[in-house]
């Protein structure tokens, strides 16, 4: 697993994106072997390194210690260029000339303000692809509006499909729009790259991250569209299946009173019969008349109470394994961290460990598509700021050492972040 993937060998992508969504999109392309060159500047560095930078944080090399940043920028190269300077901008356009595509996830006002709109990029390289993935898309009245992954989720309406009716519309408790935006960004780029591979032609690509979440809320959108009524918010209850919920088990050994929670979903009548066998007397009073889904749904609350009473005497991990052994969808509501020790993920070599300066040995989750039975190799950890200035600006763009030194003196390139407004 030491060789870099060659799937997208020969394709070069300039990654202007920041935060989570855009860098994750470009990470997929880097994992597949594209030469992804991330461009930051010493003052306008990726805010995913920190949104609360201080001089102390800079002095402590905080910019290199963000697991968020490091997690989504592996397998890439990194250069710094101050795009607000004429020289930085010119070098950027030279890089565009030698690339297949640019990806960015700024709000719609940023590239034009930098004098780097699509027409300008096209003058440098008439076949360039530009994937723009602002939250609300590159057209329409909200094209310049700002958003995070949480904003994207809110604007998609998805919270109206989750939780209990008596609670507030419920979010997914991560910056949900970001990771999905990353998937759509990579997808959009690949579609454009395929057209370019066939015809040589580049183009603009417009991705609205908010619209990218509609497929995840499709069940609610179609409920409204097909039935002309709002989707219900029934907590963990399901309109077709019962039991269907999350049930309390015995507390973890290192916890005092908080139950460990167990997901149980019975999707068919055979699974119901299997659940009755596993739980013994606990569900025995639900006789044959409840051997159909609709019958069980009609008494879902009573089943939930009986099942919860039984699970509350059980150790969660053991009972999850027993239920799965009986063919029932069950899983402990575990910590994300527990996935690091998941036997199945480790059998499949999902976690790849990489030594990274400033932070040491770190786990990295593989791309979720394995090729011929092997995960795609993660060869290089996330680059440090400006790590490849010489390699890219020198070897690729032909800047001499003296020119590079002059650029560094002027603060146009560098390897350490600076507080905004401190360029000499």
């Amino acid at each position, binding site marked *: 697993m030491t060789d870099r993937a060659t799937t997208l060998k020969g394709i070069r992508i300039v990654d202007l994106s920041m935060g989570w969504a855009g860098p994750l999109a470009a990470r997929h392309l880097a994992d597949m072997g594209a030469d992804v060159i991330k461009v930051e500047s010493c003052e306008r560095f990726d805010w995913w390194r920190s949104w609360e930078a201080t001089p102390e944080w800079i002095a402590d090399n905080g910019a290199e210690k963000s697991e968020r940043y490091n997690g989504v920028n592996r397998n890439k190269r990194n250069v710094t260029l101050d795009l607000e300077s004429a020289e930085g901008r010119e070098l950027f356009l030279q890089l565009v000339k030698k690339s297949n595509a640019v990806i960015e996830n700024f709000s719609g006002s940023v590239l034009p303000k930098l004098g780097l709109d699509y027409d300008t990029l096209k003058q440098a390289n008439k076949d360039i692809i530009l994937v723009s993935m602002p939250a609300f898309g590159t057209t329409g009245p909200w094209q310049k509006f700002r*958003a995070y992954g949480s904003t994207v989720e809110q604007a998609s309406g998805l919270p109206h499909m989750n939780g209990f009716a008596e609670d507030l519309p419920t979010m997914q408790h991560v910056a949900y729009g970001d990771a999905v935006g990353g998937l759509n960004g990579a997808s959009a780029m690949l579609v454009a790259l*395929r057209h370019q591979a066939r015809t040589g032609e580049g183009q603009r*690509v417009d991705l609205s991250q908010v619209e*990218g979440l*509609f497929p995840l809320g499709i069940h609610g959108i179609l409920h409204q569209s097909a039935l002309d009524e709002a989707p219900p918010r029934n907590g963990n209850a399901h309109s077709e299946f019962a039991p269907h919920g999350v049930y309390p088990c015995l507390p973890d050994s290192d916890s005092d009173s908080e139950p460990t929670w167990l997901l149980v979903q019975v999707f068919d009548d055979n699974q119901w019969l299997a659940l009755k066998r596993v739980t013994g007397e606990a569900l025995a009073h639900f006789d044959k008349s409840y051997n159909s889904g609709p019958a069980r749904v009609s008494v879902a609350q009573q089943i939930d109470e009986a099942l919860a009473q039984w699970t509350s005497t059980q150790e969660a991990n053991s009972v999850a394994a027993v239920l*799965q052994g009986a063919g029932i969808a069950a899983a402990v509501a575990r910590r*994300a961290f527990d996935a690091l020790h*998941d036997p199945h993920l480790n059998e499949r070599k999902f976690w790849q460990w990489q030594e990274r300066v400033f932070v040491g040995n770190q786990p990295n*989750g593989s791309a979720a598509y394995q090729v011929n039975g092997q995960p795609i190799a993660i060869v290089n950890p996330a680059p440090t700021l400006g790590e490849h200035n010489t390699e890219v600006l020198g070897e690729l763009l032909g800047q001499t050492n003296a020119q590079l030194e002059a650029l560094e003196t002027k603060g146009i390139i560098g390897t350490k972040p600076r507080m905004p407004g401190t360029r000499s």
Partner: protein
Amino acid sequence: MFEGALAGLRVVDIGGSVSTQYCAKLFADHGAEVINLEPPNGFATRLLPPVVSNEHSSNASALHGWLNANKRSVVASALNEVDIKRVLTSAALLLDDGNNPGWLATGVNVRSVISWFGTGESYANYTGSDGVCFAMNGMLRTIGRIEGPPLIPTGYQAQIVGGNTAFIGSLGEVIASELGNRTEPVNLETSIMEAMMCFTEVGVVGSYNSGLHAERMGVNRFPPTYPMGVYPCKDGWLGVTALTPSQWHSFCELLDMQEFADLPLFQTAVGRLEAADILEPMIQEKLLLLSAEDVFYRGQQQAVPLARVPTMEELFRVDQFVERGAFTSINFPAGTQLTVPGTPFRLFTTPPIAGGQVAALGAHTGNYQND
């Protein structure tokens, strides 16, 4: 007939899961010829609710319709071996859910399997579901009221994520063969559970480094910041996120809470999150008296990332979505029309296909019976 950036590609779906169909849908949206090679009674998705009225039961699923517009439906058993072999060998991509082990990649094509866990011993016989994936990636534990129970995200979200992830790997390999980067057939395998780790993998590393773990803090309360949630206003719902000090400052001004704007405790996201119980009642009370529409626009003018949070009824009328044509219309075999989301990304020179026709079961079988 087929236009778009993926024109000229044939994709054959023999799996018929939500994941394989979503993956294939992205191909179809951009002009690939997608053939559903279905069993005699059709793919199981044909029966998923909700259903549209006035359509035959095998064609009436709204979800199936949305997933399969512009695809072709062929009943596999109506083709002879030669026909099937010709269809398969001419495909750039075969999509499977893991239940058809004999259908291997041939020539230079890609066989892409999407299953809950992928191959491997530990979960070889496990039953997967969207909920199981949310439990295993750690998200389920964190959603909902502090006292529990944790809340299962609804719908098919994990399966869509799995399909989208497989699309990336699959199209990458298709391009690889067209670029000459690959000259052999290739077997891809996407685990939906692993795809779902995209939401929490960074958190895993964070916990590894810090020893700290995300726990359930209450509805719409989660790291890295506060305020971040959905609030009722006098005319609808407002989505709020204030992350940076300047966003917090502007948000306080919008709500006429300037006295909190500069308090040192509230200058960091973590500081505000720790003080959320103090701030939450005030923010709720202020916003209830304000217009979500007004605060949204004024906030965005000050670079505060606010959102309207449309109900499903409102969603189809949101200015931004209407202007962009975010929704389109699909036609069912007996003529029913349904409004559905269009494809999430648009190419300007080779635009995606908007809307389309849902094929009745076996509607295209005859097209592929040549011998």
